[in-house]
């Protein structure tokens, strides 16, 4: 979509968003400089890779990955919201976020059907943590991106196609 076809209002609103973002980056950027290594991490329990779902991450099909991860078939739900660009500016960095209004969420997963290994990320959501995540993924080519939400022992899904012309796997 060309900006010329956008209304003045939209342009203005976007401009304001941008300014906020810049200020945020300024404050945050300088603040994080001070954060690095402020305290030893001795009290923290280090992340544990033993629970990394190896089998699910090794599957070469979307169905295989879902089966290995959850052992269940997902049902499409309009309560799962997947935000991904229609056209990725570059397959190497595609911002994707998942939110849901479903209660009792225990985990969220994101898959890219067209990637060599479709499972991209799996998030554990303990009680008290919002069922909303954002991250950035590599997409090898134009593909369906699938968000899975585990809630109350069931799996719900939302799917969106992302067009990729500059792949995230080299070149």
């Amino acid at each position, binding site marked *: *979509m*060309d*900006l*010329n076809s*956008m209304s*003045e209002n*939209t*342009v203005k609103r*976007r*401009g304001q*968003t*941008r300014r906020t*973002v*810049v200020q*945020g*980056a*300024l404050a*945050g*950027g300088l603040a*994080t*400089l001070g954060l*690095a290594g402020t305290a030893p991490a001795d009290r923290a329990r280090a992340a544990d890779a033993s629970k990394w779902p190896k089998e699910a991450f090794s599957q070469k099909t979307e169905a295989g990955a879902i089966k290995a991860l959850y052992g269940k078939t997902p049902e499409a739900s309009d309560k799962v919201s997947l935000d991904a*660009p*229609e*056209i*990725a*500016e*570059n397959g*190497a*960095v*595609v*911002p994707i*976020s998942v939110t849901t209004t479903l209660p009792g969420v225990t985990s969220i997963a994101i898959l890219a059907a067209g990637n060599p290994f479709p499972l991209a990320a799996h998030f554990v959501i303990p009680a008290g943590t919002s069922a909303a995540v*954002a991250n*950035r993924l590599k997409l090898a080519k134009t593909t369906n991106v699938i968000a899975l939400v585990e809630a109350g022992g069931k799996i719900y899904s939302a799917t969106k196609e992302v*067009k990729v*012309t*500059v792949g995230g796997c080299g070149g």
Partner: protein
Amino acid sequence: MTAKHRTAAINGTVFFAIAVAAIGAQAARAANTVDPQADFKAFRAYFTKRFPKVPLSDFVNGPYSMDAGLRKQWIEIDAFPPYQFALDKGKQMFETPFPNGKTYADCFANKGIGIRQNYPLFDTKSGEVITLDVALNQCRQQNGQPPLDYTKDDMAALTAYMAYTSRGKPFDIKIPDDPRARAAYQKGEEYFFSRRGQLNFSCASCHVQSAGQHIRTEVLAPALGLVAALPIYRSEWGGMGTTSRRLTSCNSQVRAVPLKPEDEQYRDVEYYLSYMSNGLPISGPGARP
């Protein structure tokens, strides 16, 4: 393989012939007139007329000023930008004293903070255009340090930090009353508008004539404000790029052998483009597809 090469050679020649014919049809410009102010007015008028919905200060955001889908991704990515690590590194480098106890700050006006918008500047002593990158290496040299590679991450990090401290400050490029300065300006203008490489493209072919158009998913950034975002993090590179990296890669893309980084012609074209962007805010370091 040979046949393929020959085809490429013929194609190049055909491209070239067509383009030359097209140029010949245009009206001749009076030679030997250097009027930066008139150029500036015409340059700005061209872009603001062609993209009436783009606020002037938004031109510095390149493709993101022209495409809503790209803009949304950029805002999401810029919320915690991938150039953050380069910024942190640049700040650390900038503040780390040289072995003699001096720092980069000692080489610059206002201790080097918030001065990016004044570069490149014309040095009336040496009679040359000095870009920020060159000034940084001169500073290193004065303090007994080896120069940094103009295309690599350390230079990108330093210039990223210096640009960051200058964000929002309007470009303020001066052309002193010195025939050498006007000559440098004009050489930069010549470089910008001259076609080169086997594909027979000039900088202007992409960033003036085709500005705002799509190449695959990319949108060609308009020349107005083009330099304000440098250095940039490019997703395509998976890392930071300096002005030199940007210029040399542009050359390669049109099958022209790049000049040496910070060659006089590169410095002159940066001088010209920065002057054309006078008044527009520094937005570097930028993030680009």
